[in-house]
């Protein structure tokens, strides 16, 4: 099961219904071929960085889908190429990091500091570590957990930076994270 992502730009001169119809055509096309639509995003009207066929704006759509075999891709691209309403398109096969990134982005994790789904993992880790140790070391444990918490928290900060791209904040915030990461890795 490979996951793909197709982004295409629809001509903005068309009416709203036609634009939606265009996107729907391809969704139906994909579904008809037995693909599982993971996500469909209407990015909306954007200023193009350069003119394409005398248009300065375009309506962006992004569709993520899963397909067992890649045979759908050439068929889809042929259809997109023949369609006059489509100004540009790009099909990309996503690796596991790409899939994760898109999932996180959809769940609103990118652009925020904390990752909720990391919490259970953190709890497990600390359990596994602290269990064999005697209660006498309890005093140490909370300190450790404290040290860990910011690591998990802030290691996701760059993802936020990736979304928002404030160069300064990026350099400032996670410096502590880097330090703590090395500290914990030494402990392990």
């Amino acid at each position, binding site marked *: 099961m490979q996951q793909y992502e197709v982004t295409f730009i629809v001509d903005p001169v068309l009416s709203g219904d036609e634009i939606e119809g265009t996107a729907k055509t391809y969704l139906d096309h994909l579904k008809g071929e037995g693909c599982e639509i993971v996500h469909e995003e209407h*990015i909306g009207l954007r200023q193009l*960085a350069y003119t394409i066929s005398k248009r300065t704006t375009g309506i962006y759509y992004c569709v993520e889908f899963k397909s067992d075999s890649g045979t759908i891709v050439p068929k889809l691209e042929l259809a997109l190429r023949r369609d006059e309403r489509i100004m*540009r398109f790009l099909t*990309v096969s996503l*690796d596991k990091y790409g899939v994760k990134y898109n999932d996180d*982005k959809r769940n609103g994790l990118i652009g925020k500091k904390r990752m909720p789904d990391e919490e259970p993992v953190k709890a497990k880790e600390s359990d596994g570590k602290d269990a064999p140790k005697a209660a006498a070391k309890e005093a140490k444990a909370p300190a450790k957990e404290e040290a860990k918490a910011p690591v998990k928290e802030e290691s996701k900060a*760059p993802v936020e930076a990736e979304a*928002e791209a404030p*160069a300064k904040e*990026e350099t400032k915030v996670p410096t502590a994270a880097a330090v703590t990461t090395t500290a914990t890795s030494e402990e392990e």
Partner: protein
Amino acid sequence: MASRDDIKFLSNPKLGQKAKKYCRFRKYGIRHIDYKDPEFLKQFVNEQGKILPRRITGNSLKYQKKVATAVKRARHLAYLPFVTDLLK
């Protein structure tokens, strides 16, 4: 009399040292570079829209290649210009 500790440098001796460059993707654990995020990608191109070399961005080879791919994809989809002036 002035002791050794009292001696002050006229200028900060650390001023001339440059901060060591590092790969931000490795440092912060960014594994995927999104081509649909032109604001992020603009950090890796110059004012003319050219991809900056590794010796300036400090990226590791692995991620420099990914950045280059993402920038090229963004150009194709008109998120970034191929050539321009005063991009930033």
